[in-house]
């Protein structure tokens, strides 16, 4: 296959003052009180370095979160603070020039998965991920997002899902899953509802499930059926992912989230229910309403919250003896450390699997798998991504697990690659897949 010059390299080589000004204008717009406070707080102690999976696996000072943070803060100080203008050399304030922009692109897109572990490690609590996302947004304003990531964003914007799955294919897949559901449950009335009005839940999933992991959808459908849930898919908007969270482009990110919100309202669903997707949860639960400056009239919840609630209330009955393999759990950063969904998946897995073991460290201190932040899309940084994932691979190996559960399809893709790269010999599943295998049949 013929390949032309790298469009990003061309764009960087042709960078003109107008593009640099665009970046600065957007950075100024994105830097509010919070980011400015961070600029006055970081003392460059470097203690965040050992929180970062990139740094820990490379020992490259450029991978230290404080270095990435200060690439941005030094520019902010130079252009937008009196001290930085008066004493630039002394305070380390630097102008944004073409070389700095190239380093921003390489470091902010290529050396960070936005996992937020450095924030927990920072002695002051600086949200480094937030500053990096603001700077990514500034780069996006000048069309400097790595094209592989940008094309994922634009595919979703243009087609309604990030895999460009035509509506007919989606509906065919749903119909096939419905037949499977009926066959496996022996219930000819079992449905994969599409565009059902007035349901309790509008369920949104990662389109990779439609394309590559339909059994994941089947598992969720079995669990909903067992819970007696009233739910539906939308024929138009079912993509929970939002790569605008990663590109930093709030405009496109808001547009993608708005589609899910609009479908929820159009179908009169009571809740927007988010499937097992870490960044999709972060985007649609926590960020979308701010992007859109619009308060949703319905709650946005994770499928894990709803299933755990059903388990607590006795609506969902599980038999752990049905799943006897050793199971461990990966904590997706956007869902757990940044999202607050920490115990629900544990409650479900303890009820669904007889041999559940935690990785160490876990929960808020879990290591990122390395697949977030758009890294899976940005193939140019694949070597770094796989190297950074070594910590997660080591963690998995130490548990002796046969099954790794990850409530996030992005993480699952990365974990499957780590499985091959580091020869872990595990299977990787969603929470719903394990729960579905342990369901107690109605009447049993």
């Amino acid at each position, binding site marked *: 296959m013929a390949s032309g010059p790298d469009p990003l390299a061309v764009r960087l080589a042709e960078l003109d003052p107008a593009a640099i000004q665009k970046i600065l204008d957007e950075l100024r717009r994105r830097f*509010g*009180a919070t980011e*400015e*406070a*961070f600029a*006055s*707080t970081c*003392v*460059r*102690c*470097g*203690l*965040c*370095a*050992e*929180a970062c999976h990139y740094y820990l696996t490379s020992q490259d*000072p*450029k991978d*230290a979160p404080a*270095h990435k943070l*200060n690439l941005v803060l*030094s520019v902010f100080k130079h252009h937008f603070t009196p*001290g930085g203008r008066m*004493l630039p*050399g*002394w*305070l*380390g304030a630097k102008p944004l020039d073409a070389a700095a922009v190239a380093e921003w692109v390489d470091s902010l897109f290529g050396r960070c998965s936005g996992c937020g572990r450095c*924030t*927990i*490690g*920072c*002695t*002051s*609590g600086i*949200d480094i991920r937030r500053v990096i996302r603001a700077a990514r947004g500034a780069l996006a304003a000048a069309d400097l997002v790595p094209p592989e990531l940008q094309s994922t964003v634009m595919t979703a914007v243009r087609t309604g899902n990030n895999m460009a799955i035509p509506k007919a294919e989606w509906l065919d897949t749903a119909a096939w899953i419905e037949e499977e559901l009926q066959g496996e449950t022996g219930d000819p009335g079992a449905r994969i509802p599409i565009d059902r009005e007035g349901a309790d839940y509008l369920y949104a999933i990662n389109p990779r499930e439609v394309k590559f992991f339909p059994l994941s959808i089947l598992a969720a459908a079995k669990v909903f059926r067992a819970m007696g849930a009233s739910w539906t898919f939308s024929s138009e908007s079912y993509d929970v992912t939002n790569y605008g969270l990663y590109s930093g482009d709030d405009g496109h990110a808001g547009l993608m989230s708005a589609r899910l919100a609009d479908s929820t309202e159009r179908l009169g669903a009571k809740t927007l229910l988010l499937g097992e997707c870490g960044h999709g949860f972060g985007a649609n*639960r*926590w*960020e*979308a*309403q*701010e992007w859109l*400056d*619009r*308060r*949703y009239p319905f*709650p*946005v919840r994770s499928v894990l919250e709803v299933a755990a609630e059903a388990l607590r209330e006795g609506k969902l009955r599980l038999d752990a003896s049905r799943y006897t393999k050793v199971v461990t759990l990966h904590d997706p950063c956007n869902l757990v*450390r*940044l*999202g*607050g969904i*920490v*115990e629900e998946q544990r409650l479900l897995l303890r009820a669904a699997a007889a041999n559940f073991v935690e990785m*160490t*460290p*876990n*929960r*808020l*201190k879990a290591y990122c798998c390395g697949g977030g932040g758009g890294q899976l899309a940005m193939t140019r940084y694949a070597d770094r991504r796989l190297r950074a994932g070594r910590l997660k691979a080591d963690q998995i190996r130490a548990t002796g697990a046969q099954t790794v559960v990850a409530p996030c399809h992005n993480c699952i893709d990365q974990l499957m690659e780590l499985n091959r790269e580091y020869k872990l010999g595990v299977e990787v599943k969603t929470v719903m897949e394990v729960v579905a295998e342990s369901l107690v049949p109605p009447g049993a």
Partner: protein
Amino acid sequence: MLGTALASACSLVYLVWRTRSTGSRPLISAPAGRRWPGVVHAFGRDMLPWEKESIRLNPLTFLGGALYHLGVFVAVIYVLLSVLLPGVHPPAVPLRLAAAAGVLAGLALLLKRVVKPELRILSVPDDYGANLMVDAFLLLALAESFFPRLEPVLLVWTSVLFLYAPVGKIRHCFFFFYTRILYGSFLGRRGVFPPTSARV
């Protein structure tokens, strides 16, 4: 000296106020938790040495930082007391211990910054300069406790330090609290802080 202390405090308060008045995007998604319990956690359990991984992995740096800041705090109190209440003579031993430990810790942290490549790449002149200015202040406070005739030198240097505080990294003495509140508030609102159960 009191004038410079007041000017420094006012400048720092102004900087925080000005930063805060920049404004932030309003958060309108429904909260999953409460801000203040998150802030309390951020200033409490989350700062404990055995809780914070970065501290656990770097106990000497943590100890150095703690002694350094304690030394500065004690020395500033003593200097302010000597100016505000000239007739009062608090015992010199706590000052001597805190200042001596502080200056040693400060120099150790400076050495670490010079020696470690991942810190060198990060560092700017202010990082070295501010450290040396504070070390000199601690050294002067220590020396003055033995040789009171050094008091004018100490007061002049303290004034310089106060005037410098809002300019460079020393401003973190105010902004640390601001950022820590933002941190606890953010994670509290998202239901992450305080954590629901024990871990690692």
